């Protein structure tokens, strides 16, 4: 197993290196360091101020190693990321590491309940729909799921803000207050939107697994022995369907830390998703590369964890 993990880690290093290179190439293919400076300083500043800003932030140096092997931005980009020295944000010179630590709380307070509620609602609903398979409820469930998957998250956001915050007036339209006594009021709406917008895909995915599992021989045997449908579904089908569910779930867990781009942005939650959106909008290369790098690392970790969890829950799986 160790050899397998090491091999996957080596693949992961290649992936992360590739992601960092791709980000650098794509970013500077469309953005000039002058643009980064101008975004930070404003349109009206004189050119000499821009030049000085570039100098103080290291953007005045050659981009590529073939322009200057000893002093170029690409090598520095790798050095900074691999040493986890993320530096300061281009937009306002604040420490990126501090901002990430600060944003993690709001992000997790949104994504963890979203994740847990998604599972708690998604799996039973999928079981229910699979239980009623080939009936009106199954067909209705599939229709609702496909419909829910087809609707843009933006529509859910705007619709929920209109219906729940503007008409029913149950929760604020947007905002965030970390005070534990009131934070739920600000998180309720984005969590609701997140759960509703995600449940279609999840329920349909789990239903497919349950239905497939329900058609296996051992289920038929259980039925022949007189086991009730409820017992079959909850005891046999659910347990054996855990492997593909685990794949989905374990892969998702690392990304809970990176937050939600759209929900945080529209509901004013100062998390890491919001930070990433700001970095994209503001040509903030130093922040963007950090978030992409962290995303790539989490992806690699998620993949390895998924493989390991396979081996843990299914004795037939051997990692070699």
């Amino acid at each position: 197993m160790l050899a397998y993990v090491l091999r996957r880690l080596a693949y992961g290093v290649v992936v992360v290196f590739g992601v960092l290179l791709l980000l650098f190439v794509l970013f500077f293919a469309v953005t000039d360091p002058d643009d980064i400076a101008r975004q930070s300083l404003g349109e009206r500043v004189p050119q000499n101020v821009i030049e000085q800003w570039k100098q103080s932030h290291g953007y005045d140096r050659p981009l590529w190693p073939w322009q200057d092997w000893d002093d170029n931005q690409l090598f520095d980009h790798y050095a900074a990321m691999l040493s986890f020295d993320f530096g300061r944000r281009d937009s306002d010179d604040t420490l990126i590491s501090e901002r990430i630590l600060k944003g993690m709380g709001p992000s997790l307070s949104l994504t963890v309940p979203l994740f847990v509620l998604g599972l708690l609602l998604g799996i039973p609903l999928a079981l229910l729909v699979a239980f009623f398979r080939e009936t009106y409820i199954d067909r209705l469930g599939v229709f609702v799921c496909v419909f829910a998957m087809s609707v843009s998250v933006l529509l859910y956001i705007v619709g929920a803000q209109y219906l729940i915050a503007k008409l029913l007036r149950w929760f604020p339209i947007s905002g965030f207050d970390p005070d534990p006594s009131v934070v739920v009021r600000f998180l309720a709406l984005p969590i609701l939107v997140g759960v509703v917008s995600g449940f279609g895909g999840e329920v349909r995915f789990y239903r497919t697994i349950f239905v497939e599992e329900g058609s296996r021989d051992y289920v038929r045997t259980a039925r022949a022995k007189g086991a009730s449908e409820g017992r079959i579904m909850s005891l046999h089908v659910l347990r054996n369907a855990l492997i593909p569910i685990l794949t989905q779930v374990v892969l998702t867990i690392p990304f809970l830390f990176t937050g939600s781009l759209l929900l945080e942005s529209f509901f004013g939650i100062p998390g890491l998703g919001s930070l990433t959106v700001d970095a994209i909008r503001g040509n903030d290369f130093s922040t963007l590369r950090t978030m992409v790098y962290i995303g790539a690392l989490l992806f690699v970790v998620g993949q390895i964890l998924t493989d390991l969890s396979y081996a843990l829950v299914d004795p037939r799986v051997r990692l070699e």
Partner: protein
Amino acid sequence: MRSEGMLRSLLTAVLASALALAIASCNNNPYPDDDAKQKVLYTSFVDAPRTLDPAVAYTTASHAITGNVYDTLLEYHYLKRPFELIPGLAERIPEPEFLEDGRVRYRFQLREGILFQDDPSFELGGAGRSTRPVRAEDVAFELQRIADPAVNSPVFEPFSNIDGLADFRARLVTLREQEEGFTDLPLRVQYRRAGPVRGIRVADDRGLEILLAQPYPQILYWFSMPFTTPVPWEAVEYYDGEGDRSRFADHPVGSGPFRVVEYDKESRFVLEANPNWYGARHPEWSAPGATYPVEGEADDAAKGRLDPEYRGRALPFIERIEFRREKESIPRFNKFLQGYYDASGIVKESFDTVVVEDRLSPEMAERGISLEKTVAPAIYYMGFNMDDPVVGAAAGVRGRLLRQAMSLVVDSEEYARLFQNGRGVPSQSVVPPGIFGYDPDYENPFRKVDLDRARELMDEAGYRDGVDPETGKPLRLTFDTPDTSPQGQLRFQWFVNQWRKLGIDVQVDATNYNQFQEKVRNGAYQLFMWGWVADYPDPENFLFLLTTAMARSVSGGPNTANFQNEEFDALFEQMETAENGPDRAATIVQMREILERERPWIELFHPENYALFHSWLSNVKPAGISNPTLKYRDVDPGARRATREQWNRPVIWPAIVLGVLAVAVVVPGLVTYFRERQ
């Protein structure tokens, strides 16, 4: 059994009460309940300012904070237009003293006993100290910071007129480069070593003399901006970003009417009334910058801005200002409509429901919302590169006629209607409304639409029906722009279509900003669209854009049209230093006539800002330029609370409809299933 039943009843009662309580406590108010009784102003921001360092901050977002935290020596009268300077921290507006050697001196006298806000950084000056008096040397220190290349202030250029400030800057650079350990010295020691500056003399604690190398009366306007505020050296040294200390750029320490008590860039800023402010400590002074004005413009009384309740009263009226981050415009606007923001702009998605026929819609008016339109001291224009052989000065009379003809087919009103929701006053000249020299009766003969006259001019220029006689094909011009957005392309195509009426074939060449700048640097452009927002309300700040000294091809300055006209330059020199009065107005008219004839610009429009305010917010007069306006505003928390309650009563029928719909969908399924099972 009995006790079990009682327990069940009790549990049911508790659960029902909890549910009832939860439903009752559900409301969309994003603020704590206690806020409802206080004089809190709620406003929003999209992106946090990059910096609150007054020497560097140069954006509207940052001035919304710095302008209210950092007091200035001078400021603008809140109500009067054109803008009029009044004393702020200074006792009076200094008169220029013209010295024999051509230099000009201004003597500022600070008010006595002004204090900075309380701040831990003042412990650097003595243990247990939480504040100290503002001294003239604090203003001098800030001027030196503006000159310091390490601070990277964007406004050094206008201050370089202070005698010896550029030399000071050069000495500072040299010392930092050549003397080991110099940069480790405290900033004030570095400045002392690189100084003194000939043009900055601290006479005593309250007296400051500024000596300009040559006349520049507009320097006084710069003393009404946060750039020149007194800054305590203690704060600059203490807030160095090391350890738990924040950076000075994120921790303003000023002497203004408000102080920052919370500054979370991602979420919210909170400003509170500063008890150390001179207006709060000395209301008996009735200082102009610390008292609500007693006079204003003709419409100020009608709009309730000269209410006897406020006239002559000590400022500020508001106890706290909450800036909440709202990245998206729709939630922000909806919260304004719910009464949770006191003021708002208008989102483009809702413009037609808010403004009908250029007036506030009846629906909005019914809610007590008022619409305030302000023409910004700014101009958008289409420029010709006067160095170009076809459209520029080198083409002589032919080029001038071509520019005149092209100017005659651009309908600014239509442009503003199509692309600005009508928010723009068509420009007749370079000088916008509210600035000395603006003439509301002036009609530029080349800024009205006259297709026939334009075609005649094209004929006179030798471009009959727009055909270039040299090629026999339509005259081909290039319109260079750094805007590659789809919206931008629509706008530019509109211009192309106007000029096509004259037979001219204009090609839009949209590139990124840097490529555009490269073209400008190389002079490889013909037509461009640009804008300018005034730093201060003086015609000089607009007309200098067309002087030879500012030509891009001469000095890299903002005269991108490269307009060079000796007569215009001579008139500019006269106008620049003249006092506002008939002579200066006459000079501006002469300059206007040159521009009218030569047409280096097609003046498009002066942008108009539309802002909405709730009825409980008083004394609102948007300024358009950097000015501490929040100290004049007031809120009525009682009226706000009552209105919010009225506006935010739940509308529950959608929930009922959705519930019924859900039941209607699910029940048949269940019925069918159980029937099948039977």
